[in-house]
């Protein structure tokens, strides 16, 4: 987005995450999916979390609404949304937060909607839950929402079942449902990945417009640097459950500091198509069941040094609002992609 819309620096953050870790335990192994993630989002700001498959993007989002299976998951750290300590909420307050203060859009709109109810019924269900509305009132509001997300012949579509809608319309219905109770924070987990290229762009444009109009803080997960540059105010690059670089979108695109971000951009810019994303970086991400001691990107890094194997690099700030975790930060040499 353009700089004039950037929120002021002194506004209290909407989201603050400090040192978040998420571990899944099963009989066979413990998976460290998120390993000390910290970031914050201001009201009305869009943060894109970028990273390849398995880097812990979805797990981070789900942890923010405590949607991970409770028995097998250990979450530590702090998650604060609009002043509420999410990890400390009781069941009742948590339900009020879910869908009320915070809502989520998922990647696969086909499976994310219940197949045996009409999309209208599913929106009405949410409205009645949080807003205590009458059936008629909720339906009228659902109709408004369908108009807001530009679903053609909304009256008829309200009574459609998910399988009767195209992928794009389903995702619009999903967005309408997410927006129904006026959330202050929107979590979007690759909302356009499952859609056709042209529909993808339409849904993206819609999301950006709605986000601006409604002034929601948004966390947008994606594989795609192109998508991120379209919609983000800030970008956080995630690798093996950690954020390795973070900063304003223009700065990061113009001057990536972390070798992983550099590789990511090189593969997107010079690659044949956008979906090929990070395959251009040789090697594969570490096994999350046995994390290496040092920098987790070390084994794939073209400029790796002996110290990279000893400890994870500390946080450094190349400028006031940027963060990078690499030993080489501040040194002259640049990765040669």
């Amino acid at each position, binding site marked *: 987005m353009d700089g004039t819309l950037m929120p002021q620096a002194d506004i209290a953050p909407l989201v603050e995450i400090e040192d978040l870790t998420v571990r899944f335990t099963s009989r066979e192994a413990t998976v460290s999916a998120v390993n000390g993630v910290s970031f914050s989002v201001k009201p009305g700001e869009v943060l894109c979390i970028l990273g390849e498959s398995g880097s812990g993007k979805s797990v981070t989002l789900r942890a923010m609404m405590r949607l991970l299976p409770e028995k097998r998951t250990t979450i530590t750290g702090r998650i604060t949304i609009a002043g509420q300590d999410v990890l400390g909420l009781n069941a009742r307050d948590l339900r009020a937060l879910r869908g009320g203060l915070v*809502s989520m859009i998922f990647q696969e709109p086909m*499976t994310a909607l*219940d197949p045996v*109810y009409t999309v209208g019924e599913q929106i009405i*269900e949410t409205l009645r*839950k949080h807003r205590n509305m009458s059936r008629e009132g909720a339906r009228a509001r659902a109709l408004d929402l369908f108009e807001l997300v530009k679903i053609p012949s909304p009256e008829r579509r309200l009574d459609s*079942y998910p399988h009767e809608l195209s992928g794009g319309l389903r995702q619009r219905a999903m967005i309408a449902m997410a927006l129904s109770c006026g959330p202050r924070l929107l979590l979007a987990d690759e909302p356009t990945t499952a859609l056709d290229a042209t529909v993808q762009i339409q849904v993206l444009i819609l999301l950006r417009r709605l986000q601006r109009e409604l002034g929601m803080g948004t966390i947008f997960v994606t594989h795609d640097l192109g998508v991120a540059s379209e919609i983000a105010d800030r970008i956080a690059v995630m690798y093996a459950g950690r954020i390795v670089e973070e900063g304003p979108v223009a700065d990061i695109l113009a001057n990536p500091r972390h070798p992983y971000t550099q590789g990511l951009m090189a593969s997107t810019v010079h690659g044949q198509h956008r979906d090929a994303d990070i395959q251009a970086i040789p090697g594969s991400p570490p096994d999350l069941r046995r994390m290496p001691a040092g920098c987790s990107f070390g084994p794939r890094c073209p400029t790796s040094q002996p110290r990279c194997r000893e400890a994870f690099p500390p946080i450094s700030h190349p400028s006031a609002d940027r963060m990078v975790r690499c030993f080489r930060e501040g040194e002259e040499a640049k990765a040669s992609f």
Partner: protein
Amino acid sequence: MRLARYLGYRLLLAVPVILGIIVLNFFLIHAAPGDAASVLAGESGAATPEYMALLRHKFGLDQPLSTQFAVYLLNMAHLDLGYSFRNDSPVLELILDRLGPTLLLMLTAFVVAVLLGSLLGVLAASGRNGWRDNLISLASLVAYATPGFWLGLMMIVVFAINLAWLPTSGLDTVGADNEGWDEVIDIARHLVMPATALSLFYLALYARVMRASMLEQTGMDYVTTARAKGQTERRIIFGHVLRNALLTVVTMAGVQAGNLIGGSIVVETVFGWPGIGTLAFNALQSRDLNLLLGIFFVSACLVVVVNLIVDLVYVTLDPRIEI
């Protein structure tokens, strides 16, 4: 509207099925050794060739097969299922007399199996791996492996003879001229054991299927969505998961509705239930071919109707079915 069109379509589909059964019936009669005349004559003991010929002529058995087939079709079209010489009564009348009790038994067993089975499945799934789940799983395994007739006999020994809580057999108390609610209660008491014996196997089966189906649905994305909307766990389970999980059980119940008819023959015989099952058993023992084929025809129609009803239920439950 949608349903009405579907119903018409399905009724149309049923026509060739019923016709097929009629044709099969006709050829079964003629494949059996001897014919009605020889059976009758054999029973009367004195079978002179003249008498046999007379009989054959009387029943049209001396006509060519094609003529006999045409006559048979015409009779079936008038719902004339033939005559049972054994019982000295038209077959249709005999069957209609027995249809009520059989339908009562089957429907009770079916409804109990589906409702109670689903309920137990839900209970087991919601207390997964706890004592409740283990108990239900063990009980359903035992019930699943128990033959219906054995269970029936054991129940008679325990509940009717030893404890004398329930009547041993029949549809109602003979000679007691109950009326109104008294009669309903009397029949219900007679119904308990046969319905239990008939439904237990299916009840156990549906409990297991429902449990598996519930657990499968719990992992679906739409459940996460419902949770992300702030729904209570209770509403998620009963409003979303259950509704989807039920589809599997209904499909299965539909397929097996026909088996209930077979099962009821055994159970009716054990409990002396005056239904089509005992009628079939008697017809089999006395080689009453006409009656047997009539029963075959009527039960086949019954299966067609039951399947139709189940499909209609399924279509209303699952909007994805293209009709």
